[in-house]
């Protein structure tokens, strides 16, 4: 035991409280309840969305939808093989074995052939990646950087991950996708060991914008500024799709991505289709969805069923299901595999493809990247895929949901939602 004066004890407690308060005020998400005005159409909201997310809607692009691993990995490996000058790649999940080695070897091969290969890999998402795989690439000349490595001095950044999934080749061709580099993303979503996901291959001026998203983390981790026509060439129009990049930079204000999704839901007029593996709406989103239904919009939301890699997230999402169902939002649970794609289609004219989940982690904590595509053809393709997925879904109806919602289930949902802001 040691005797200390009471004022010292008071002072010490005050000091600890002050530090705690400063930390909390620094990290806390300020409670925003965004008020979104009524907008006559999505087209009218688009310039605002682009303006507030600091992007520009650029005309003259091409886009090719890549469904599941079967379409994505061959296209990726082909682009790696074709690149002449630079290959840039950023991902969250990258493990070891099978496809992980194959992708690593493809990068290593091109680096040996003199192509500049830059890889940004999230240190947390790639924990299962073996050191020897990274060494193999580094020895071949790939520049590999790990995003927010787990170091004591970075403990305050530990929670902030890059969830972006991007690839840019010669500054002229870009991929934005939801796939991780793991055997789980192989195949065509046939079973629970082969997940469903969607990516897009882009050409045209929008690739400059995707490159700049890659450059953000690259410069942050390595200090190297990517300057030159090699990286940001002048790109001629490659199609007639209008596109804008959505890259969330969280913290310090309202999340760009949250804003984007809310304005989108507020402006939809006919039909809203959502496929997302993690769907935890806040009360503001629920209200916007209800209002959409009230003005005659058909709202269909597809989420994973029993096959989920995060049951806690799934249950946290359940909190608002009853309210959504009661107000006419249609909810579908996919039964065959984990649907991992982050798709949103508005009025058959605008689609989102990317990495952003509909939960607080994606909106407020992680770094995400997606692309908005203004094109009826793309929207029709994604809608066809949505309808195909519907065949493996069970629709949740109100009576069934009530039966399922035992008090125990409800208590568990509530518990999950209490921790949901970190999920």
């Amino acid at each position, binding site marked *: 035991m040691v005797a200390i004066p009471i004022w010292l004890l008071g002072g010490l407690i005050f000091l600890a409280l002050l530090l705690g308060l400063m930390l909390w*005020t620094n*990290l806390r998400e300020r409670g925003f309840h*965004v*008020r979104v005005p009524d907008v006559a159409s999505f087209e009218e909201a688009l*310039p605002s969305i682009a303006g507030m997310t600091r992007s520009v809607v650029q005309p003259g692009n091409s886009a090719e939808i890549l469904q599941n691993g079967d379409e994505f990995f061959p296209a990726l490996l082909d682009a790696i093989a074709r690149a002449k000058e630079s290959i840039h790649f950023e991902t969250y999940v990258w493990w070891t074995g099978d496809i992980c080695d194959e992708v690593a070897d493809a990068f290593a091969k091109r680096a040996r052939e003199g192509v500049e290969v830059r890889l940004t890999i999230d240190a947390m998402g790639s924990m299962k990646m073996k050191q020897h795989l990274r060494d193999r690439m580094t020895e071949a000349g790939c520049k590999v950087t790990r995003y927010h490595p787990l170091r004591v001095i970075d403990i305050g950044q530990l929670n902030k991950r890059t969830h972006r999934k991007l690839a840019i080749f010669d500054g002229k061709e870009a991929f934005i996708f939801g796939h991780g580099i793991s055997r789980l993303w192989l195949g065509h979503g046939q079973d629970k060991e082969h997940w469903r996901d969607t990516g897009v291959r882009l050409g045209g001026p929008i690739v400059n914008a995707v490159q700049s998203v890659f450059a953000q983390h690259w*410069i942050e981790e390595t200090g190297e500024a990517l300057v030159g026509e090699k990286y940001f060439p002048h790109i001629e129009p490659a199609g007639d799709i209008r596109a804008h990049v959505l890259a969330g*930079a*969280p913290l*310090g204000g309202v999340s760009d991505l949250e804003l984007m999704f809310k304005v989108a839901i507020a*402006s939809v007029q006919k039909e809203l289709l959502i496929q997302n593996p993690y769907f935890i709406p806040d009360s503001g989103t629920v209200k916007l969805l209800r209002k959409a239904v009230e003005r005659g919009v058909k709202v269909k939301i597809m989420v994973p069923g029993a096959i989920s890699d995060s049951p806690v997230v799934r249950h946290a999402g359940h909190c608002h299901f009853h309210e959504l169902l009661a107000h006419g939002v249609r909810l579908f649970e996919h039964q065959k595999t984990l649907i991992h794609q982050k798709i949103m289609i508005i009025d058959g004219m605008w689609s989102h493809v990317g990495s952003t989940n509909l939960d607080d982690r994606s909106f407020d904590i992680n770094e995400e990247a997606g692309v908005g595509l203004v094109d009826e053809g793309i929207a029709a393709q994604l809608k066809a895929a949505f309808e195909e997925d519907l065949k493996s879904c069970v629709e949740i109806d109100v009576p069934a949901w009530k039966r399922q919602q035992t008090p125990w289930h409800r208590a568990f949902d509530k518990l999950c939602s209490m921790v949901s802001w970190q999920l």
Partner: protein
Amino acid sequence: MATKKARAPRRPARTVEVTYWSVALYLFVLLALGLLLWSARREHDSHVKVVPPVVDFRQDLPSIANLTGSPILDGNRAEVLQNGDEFFPPLFRDVEAATKSIHVETYVWWKGEICDRLAALLAKKARQGVEVRLTLDAVGSNKGKNQLFRDMQKAGVKIAWFHPFRLADLGLVNNRTHRKIAVLDGRIGYVFGHGIAEEWTGHGQDATHWRDTGVRLEGPVVNALQGVFAENWVDTTAEVIAGLKYFPRLPAAGTVRAHVIASSPQGGVSKLELLLKLAIASAQEELLIQNPYFIPDEELVALLEAAVKRGVAVRIMLPGPVTDSSVVRHAGHRFFEELLGHGIHIYENQRTLLHQKTMVVDGEWSLIGSTNLDDRSLDINDEASVGLIDKQVAARLTQAFRDDLASSKELTLAGWRGRGLWHRTVDRFSYTINEQL
């Protein structure tokens, strides 16, 4: 505690008994909290270290614009506005003519006639049914008259205070909005360095009438500027500004190519720092800088030296004796000897506070805005500047630089080396605290 005077024996302080392990636990918690806080706040290695040798500013401008998240937009009209005399009259005219929305964001709003006049005009427009939104920094504008703000609010002006002092927002107190922008009907934009205060009226004629530069913009770039306004507006009020009323489709209004560079502290490398370093790295002929606060870091100094070595004429004009922050001025002195030794021209304006934040590269690209060249602007505050690709705009700013030379003194290496010991000590001390200035 030793006491000087003799007095009655002190009553022993009341003490409490605590166990050693609770002391240890306390220390651990304190350390952990401190570490977390420091680590969450620290700039995550966010300085630009590798700036590639840029071949050509014109050719690499797309890279620069993309890296700083500010796509270049064609078809704008840009009119440079010098000092209060050229800035306030057109601003008042455009506010008067606005029919739908008036958006103004500023750091400084103090007291004086100009404040009263602008407030009266904004209130009048609000009463006419025009949507008036005013974002004011809670620290920068705390000298403003409360009655004035209340009157505006009564008339229907929506005022958003940026980061007011609240216990729950203690961690944000240091992050201010230093942006100075105005957007009228979503069609006309202003980017400027002026504060709303008497100091910014006149034409930089003396120590109480400061020198500053703004620009009036029309064309597609105004959409981007509206986006910048909307960002802090939604952060402070949660009201989303969306719709064609605010973001109209803007036809070409001129031939100036423009890009808006807005920065916020969080989220990696500062876009403005990146822009600044890339612009210096890419200058081929001439680099002109006018800025009230100039505290370069070592990398910036190296880039300036490299520019001189490849034949670029580098001229930097700063305030002299008339400054509103002599600590900043002295902190900037740290690298002066080195800069002068390498042939960089440094001028100190003698007549007034040079408050404009302008830069001209190779007579082609100009930057006008709110960004000072110190860590507070580059890493802590929210700032907004506009890059303009146009020879005429560059020529106007170059001419203004020459005019300012008449009231400036060039520093010489010999003269600088002869400065007194006291001056050196102040410089050294000022620099050590420079990050927060």
